[in-house]
């Protein structure tokens, strides 16, 4: 597997009035071409910040972000622009991510215009893109407010696809959508992947959606990855106590299955990233924590089947 994206010890720190926030605190992972990597975790775990760092929408403090071998973490100017053609992003809020005063055609054409395409080529490409995402071509002349949430998300996807990116960072792309529309957008993303071989970094807090769409899954907690492995491995044999707790907490849309499973409800809430616990970031909520966990931070270790987990007791 050739890695399309390689993260090597990526840190994103923010200086705030209340102190230094280590939003992403040493993340390393690989994403192969044509692969969908799900990134799950609760609010504040740093998953969106990591997505934005890969897009270079927030400054990377230290570490390497390699896209097809080139480190882009500190690129500037035209080199950065060239990189952005390879990596695109779809955002959570389909209302906030489109310019309300710009027609849909202009929004979708924007990346092409910036890339220096000729007007005739742009017009043709916009028609093709709208067709791919299942919107009528007369959508071009209309404005975002004329469309529903699901349709706006399609517009965002068309814009992201404009320059044939290799990787699309999907930041909670279906969280704001209704159930039936959510399924439409997930199916569209899967069709596009099958057709164009694009890779997804699929960021979501919804485990059932990630289980459906991802090939591999990474679980984040307080800025670090605590477990990463194939989808089946994470769901059938989770190793890290936090992964187990997350899976136990996720509601299952099957009443009989829901009743038969035993669930241990995790106590407490995510600690503040301003004052992360020393040692293992999860020890304050962990059911199997020992004295060692309070002082020594566990590193990711292989647990078999190319899966890794960061826990002293695996």
């Amino acid at each position, binding site marked *: 597997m050739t890695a399309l994206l390689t993260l090597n010890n990526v840190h994103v720190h923010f200086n705030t009035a209340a102190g230094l926030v280590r939003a992403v605190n040493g993340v390393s992972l690989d994403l192969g071409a044509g692969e969908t990597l799900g990134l799950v975790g*609760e609010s504040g775990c740093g998953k969106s910040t990591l997505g934005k760092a890969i897009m270079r929408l927030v400054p990377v403090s230290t570490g390497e972000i390699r896209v097809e071998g080139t480190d882009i973490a500190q690129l500037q100017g035209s080199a950065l622009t060239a990189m952005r053609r390879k990596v695109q992003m779809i955002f959570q809020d389909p209302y906030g991510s489109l310019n309300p005063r710009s027609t849909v055609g202009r929004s979708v054409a924007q990346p092409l215009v910036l890339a220096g395409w000729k007007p005739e080529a742009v017009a043709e490409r916009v028609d093709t893109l709208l067709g791919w995402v299942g919107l009528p071509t007369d959508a071009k002349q209309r404005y975002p407010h004329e469309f529903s949430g699901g349709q706006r998300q399609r517009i965002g996807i068309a814009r992201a696809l404009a320059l044939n990116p290799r990787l699309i960072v999907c930041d909670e792309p279906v969280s704001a959508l209704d159930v039936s529309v959510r399924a439409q957008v997930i*199916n569209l993303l899967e069709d596009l992947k099958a057709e164009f071989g694009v890779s997804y970094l699929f960021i979501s807090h919804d*485990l059932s959606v990630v289980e459906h769409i991802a090939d591999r899954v990474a679980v984040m907690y307080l800025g670090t990855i605590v477990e990463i492995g194939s989808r089946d491995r994470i769901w059938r044999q989770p190793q890290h106590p936090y992964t187990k707790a997350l899976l136990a907490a996720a509601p299952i849309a099957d*009443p009989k299955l829901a009743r038969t499973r035993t669930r241990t409800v995790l106590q407490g809430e995510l600690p503040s990233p301003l004052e992360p616990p020393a040692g293992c970031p999860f020890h304050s909520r962990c059911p199997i924590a020992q004295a060692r966990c309070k002082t020594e931070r566990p590193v990711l270790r292989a647990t078999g089947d190319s899966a890794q987990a960061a826990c002293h007791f695996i």
Partner: protein
Amino acid sequence: MAAVPLEVSDLRTTLFTRRGEMKAVDGLSLSVGAGETVALVGESGCGKSLSALSIMRLLPDPPARIVGGAVKLNGRDIVPLSEESMLDIRGKEIGMIFQDPMSALNPVATIEKQIAEVVMAHTGLGRFQARARAHELLEQVGIPDAARRLDAYPHQLSGGMCQRVVIAMAIACSPSVLIADEPTTALDVTVQAQVLTLLKRLQAEAGMAMIFITHDLGVVAETADRVVVMYAGRKVEEAAVDDLFEAPLHPYTAGLIGATPVPGAVRAERLADIPGMVPPLNALPPGCAFAPRCPRAMDRCRTERPALTEPRPGRRVACFAAEKGPT
């Protein structure tokens, strides 16, 4: 026999707007027994929240007004009651929990003051006793370090903690009916599990009747005894929770279930999606509101609106195709 805690019959709520009248709740009937949880399910705009607000008599008027039907709370119809009498009933006989705990709380009042206000309004307890009761309630809803939290302001607590405070306020006077409107939608999954466990425990302890409004079928499967599915302001299906998931009768219910991935199940290649979207209330089709999106729609569905039928006791569906056979 004691009266059913909540019995809603043929409730109709209309929005009077410049663009015409919209039937936001169109003839909803449901009853909830003591200790029972009925889930009200549907997508945005199907009328589930407006149904809850109608039952609570909390509708913004104008534009919304109850134009027909009855809401019997412990045997008494509360639709004709004055706002003054409702003040007495809300919080005492019927409580409500909202989706966004942050905006349900007053940001400039301490937790103690907000809970004590409810307690004093309904019980005649003095300030001092009300504080003791507030402390007790915070412990009951599992807030750690309750004594210290009493003097905290909402912004000092996390979303999950705020939702616990809202729950404490809702159950302060042991209401016989609790309406929970998407109470865990804004919460993280581990906190959601905590709040669901808490609600179930409190309900079992007090034998409350609960209406649980949600769009998340996973949450429905975890909490409900019975399910009412709504579409475009009307009830389209009602069933016991197991029956609903096992053999949905209405194509819309079947579509919702097919569109929800079940972790651990055999991975479906594609999710079953429902084409199109929920029609706006001012542009409902003449026949069945779901007909334009329905895979089983017949000519009749486009002109005639199916009435709610009861093929088996406790099982209701409004669909011509379902009358012919299961999906």
